[in-house]
């Protein structure tokens, strides 16, 4: 009886502290995976926390952060597969490489942040994922490896390659904008 009460207390404490520490970050991360669909991202994160409420604290207490990211990531990928948004990622890569930006669209995206995010969307999904986990969530290679199931060495390689491609895409985009008189 005592053990059960203790577990109840522990899981409640775990949920409360995790909510405080990771809620916002998880919504950001999941939204990124879902192409900026904030509503779906919130649903996914809520679902993950509800799932956490049902876990045995013995199994999640020491890795709750990775656990939450993994649950959100898996669910987001399920949604992506379901909605076939996955393919849009790959299509967008060719699109941005082959087409010049629409001037009005460029005006909307004149800020650097928007530019960076647009180009990030053009990276392969696994690279986008590690970039988000590293630069948005500030997770360590080890944590990213746990969440993605990829070795830490491979994480380093994916990040390295992602940054180079991202920079190349940004430079290409800026060159195109410059040749057309600039976005603003």
């Amino acid at each position: 009886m005592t053990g059960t009460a203790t577990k109840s207390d522990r899981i409640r404490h775990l949920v409360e502290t995790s909510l405080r520490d990771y809620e916002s970050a998880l919504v950001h991360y999941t939204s990124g995976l879902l192409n900026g669909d904030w509503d779906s991202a919130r649903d996914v994160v809520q679902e993950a926390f509800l799932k956490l409420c049902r876990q045995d604290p013995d199994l999640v207490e020491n890795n709750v952060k990775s656990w939450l990211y993994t649950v959100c990531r898996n669910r987001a990928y399920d949604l992506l597969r379901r909605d076939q948004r996955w393919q849009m990622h790959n299509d967008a890569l060719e699109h941005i490489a082959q087409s010049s930006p629409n001037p009005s669209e460029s005006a909307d995206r004149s800020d650097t942040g928007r530019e960076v995010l647009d180009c990030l969307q053009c990276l392969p999904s696994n690279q986008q994922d590690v970039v988000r986990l590293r630069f948005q969530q500030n997770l360590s290679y080890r944590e990213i490896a746990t969440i993605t199931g990829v070795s830490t060495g491979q994480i380093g390689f994916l990040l390295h390659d992602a940054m180079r491609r991202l920079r190349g895409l940004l430079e290409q985009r800026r060159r195109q904008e410059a040749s057309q008189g600039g976005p603003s």
Partner: protein
Amino acid sequence: MKATLPQPETNLDPALEAVLCALEDGGDWREDLSPDSIAEGEEWETLARELGSALRMGPGGLETSQREAILSAASHPVFLHTGAWTKPVPEPARAPAPPYRWIAGAAAAMIALLLGARHIPVTWGINPAAWDLAFEKRQESSEPSFHVRLWPGENFVRNTANVAHNPLSSKGDWSAVGTGGGFQPTAMANVSEVVPALASAADTPLADLLPAPIGAGRASTAALIQHFRYSYPAPESGEALSLSVQTGPCPWRPGNQLVHVGIQASSDPRLVPASKSLAVRDLRLLIDFNPSLVSAYRLVGYGGSEPIPNQPPLGQLRGADLLAGQSITAIYEIVPTGPAKSSWVERDKARWEKTAGVNRGRAPDELLVSRINYRLPGRDKEFKEQTFVHLNDSKTPLPRDDFEFSAAVAACALLLDRAPGMQHYRMEDALALARSNIGPDPDGRRAEFIRLLTGKKQG
């Protein structure tokens, strides 16, 4: 410790790598770099900063209502384990029974032993707990009953007809006690109403259990669930039945839970020497949920308005007959108790505490009590077994693929049935769940199910 570097065969940019490693380790990336590389590194550092800043843009955070729902669920962490195979639990400390009850119990025990009741761990008449329970029910017989259970957010009402005409109540066993005064036990679910229709479902071709063409009619949800084989453990040596209970998330309504109940008949012919084929007859199961943990529930596939296929009139119902090695499966959807409780929940809670003996030493994590009544071939005696299921019993959980496949089957059938409460769940979700939990599938039934429904989807 340095972060793990990429593989040496890749064409690394030393400045980028230095920046990435410094971000990981917190060191100074400029160390050991040439002036040209430092200039390059500053470019990478700027990009990393822009990236982090851009990725953190946006509203973030959950809606207030979502956060409140989580905190509420955390305050009532009903399901701490995914597995909950049942084992009879030791009886709690309780007050000594009056002498006349012990005398009657001893006499009943002698009779039971003479009749060969050794297979049954808990039998009526020799179990003081069962006697007390019946006694208390009798004392409560003047209480009004609360059997109309509103399904939160849905137009679902508990099938009160099943309760009012509970066939077990007319058999004179423990659940019948008090019916004369209008009292019905908190136990509402009567699987004996279900199982006669299900007993043949395992051998019915799958195509016959689905509407033809698929999508044109209703599906028999309970029969479909029954059609598949699940890995229930065999009864222990000398036992006629094993009872398995597994809790887990409800795929179509994330806040709810499913309770998968399986009864497996022994395939040991020595148990029933009078007949080598028939294992158990007239099997009845009642499930009584703990209202402290469960605020509402339904037996999946048996909504208030859903007719039970080929069901005889309630008064003529008898239990199921199970052949050796056969099993029965039922799935409940339950609503974990939230902070807002209506008065009937409180009343049921008080009743549960009496019947389950919570206030006399039982653990508060008891999810349900199951009562199984059955007979064996060639014997008139009705065996009665009572088992308390704890949330924290997780000795032999049902394999996850079994649990989730059965949930997927239930979801598919409910969707085909256009059952209420499924508006946020799609057939694609259910099929994806089924596909990812197909498991070993030795008889190919699971694959056939997916094929049939996928064919429907594509058609």
